[in-house]
């Protein structure tokens, strides 16, 4: 199903005037594709879709869940986690608290990756973790910390690369058993995160675009990976500004490996490997 630019503008306007959501500054190409997908999934043509938006608030919630993208995995891009482990996190070892915000946490895999890494470094007790997403359903999954096993075998390859192996010293092998963090039930095809990690984060339904930093605190570390790719450059700049204001001095921003800070805000960060650090 193909829609026109005008169809998309009408859809965005309808959502905006009937809810708190604002998709005006999303990337047009991917947003258009998501709307086409929603039309297919809900079996509605564009006019019927817009009519439902105008008349049915519950439908808007369902639509937002349908069009937002939830791809995530445990220790996605091990190289980025290596930088964090060997170059960044040590700077927080003298902190009394380490405030962390996972913005756009999806189903929680990166939240748990961070907690596992902090635990390996003896920093878990200091961590004060907030995780937020626009989609309540993914937060529910994140809280449960339960993922399918067979479909996600690469989680363990990534775990090995980040937790067991040391890329700077191939003779090191940290013999950390998976059972330290997961209950693996191959018969029922389930990986379950242990409770001591699951109970740690505070989860929020939160719209990064319209709500900004709602947490009444600044952060040492903000993780927001492959979220900003769905925004246009103007909205990206707005969110980078929010992150900048929300970070402590020397605070760390972890984004996707194919994302970058563009525009004037890039002058306010130094880059270490794949990680950004707020300048003094």
């Amino acid at each position, binding site marked *: 199903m193909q829609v026109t630019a005008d169809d998309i503008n009408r859809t965005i306007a309808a959502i905006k005037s009937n809810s708190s959501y604002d998709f005006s500054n999303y990337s047009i*190409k*991917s947003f258009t*594709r998501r709307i086409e997908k929603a039309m297919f999934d809900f079996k509605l043509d564009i006019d019927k879709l817009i009519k439902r938006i105008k008349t049915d608030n519950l439908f808007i919630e369902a639509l937002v869940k349908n069009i937002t993208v939830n*791809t995530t995995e445990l220790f996605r891009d091990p190289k980025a986690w290596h930088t964090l482990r060997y170059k960044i996190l040590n700077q927080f070892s003298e902190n009394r608290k380490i405030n962390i915000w996972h913005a756009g946490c999806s189903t929680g895999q990166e939240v748990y990756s961070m907690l596992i890494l902090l635990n390996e470094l003896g920093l878990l007790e200091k961590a004060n973790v907030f995780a937020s997403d626009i989609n309540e359903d993914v937060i529910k999954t994140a809280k449960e910390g339960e993922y399918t096993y067979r479909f996600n075998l*690469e989680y363990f390859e990534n775990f090995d690369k980040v937790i067991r192996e040391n890329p700077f010293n191939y003779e090191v092998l940290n013999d950390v058993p998976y059972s330290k963090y997961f209950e693996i039930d191959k018969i029922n095809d389930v990986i379950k995160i242990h409770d001591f990690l699951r109970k740690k984060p505070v989860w929020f339904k939160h719209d990064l675009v319209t709500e900004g930093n709602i947490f009444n605190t600044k952060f040492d570390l903000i993780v927001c990976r*492959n979220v900003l*790719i*769905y925004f246009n450059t103007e909205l990206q700049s707005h969110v980078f500004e929010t992150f900048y204001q929300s970070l402590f001095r020397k605070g760390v921003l972890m984004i996707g490996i194919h*994302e970058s800070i*563009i525009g004037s805000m890039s002058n306010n960060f130094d880059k270490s490997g794949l990680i950004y650090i707020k300048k003094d």
Partner: protein
Amino acid sequence: MSYKYIIIGGSAGSFQTVTNILASLPQDFSMPIFLCLHRLKHVRAGFVEALSIKSNLKVIEPNDKEYIRQHKVYLAPANYHMYFELGNYIGLSTEQAVNHSRPSIDISFASAAYTYKSKLIGIILSGANKDGAYGLSQIKENGGLTIVQDPEECQVKTMTSAAISATNVDHVLKANDIIQLLLKLQNKHF
């Protein structure tokens, strides 16, 4: 007709052909080339390096919102879909795989077709599924030039045969003739 962009899709059996194309195009070949190639999920690094060895043009895996420039080859990053936004920059997305593929050739081709219309050349090479057939038909519909590698020459014919059935393609050519055609079209451009 003056073409300004080239997009190439391929899967199993296309790596050598892509390498040959990049090796045969001269340094002053100006049209940006977009590569949307399937690869194994775990082969995330090293692909740019492998393609760069013989290429006269700079090969990169673009970041999201990266501006598109002449004389460059843009390889869709592993595990991302690659779009072409108005304003001449790249958009990436991690939405689910299409035809079991991320990057999806259909998504990139359809997006390029819509953005570049008759300025686009689309090429489908050897591959083992039908990804790209819909995308190539979109290029045709939007007035672009459509080229498919001769299935007889392909290691795996599924992708090229599907593309040929999906639309009335302009050229079905052996890899060497595709290269000659690109060189000819580039010269016309000046």
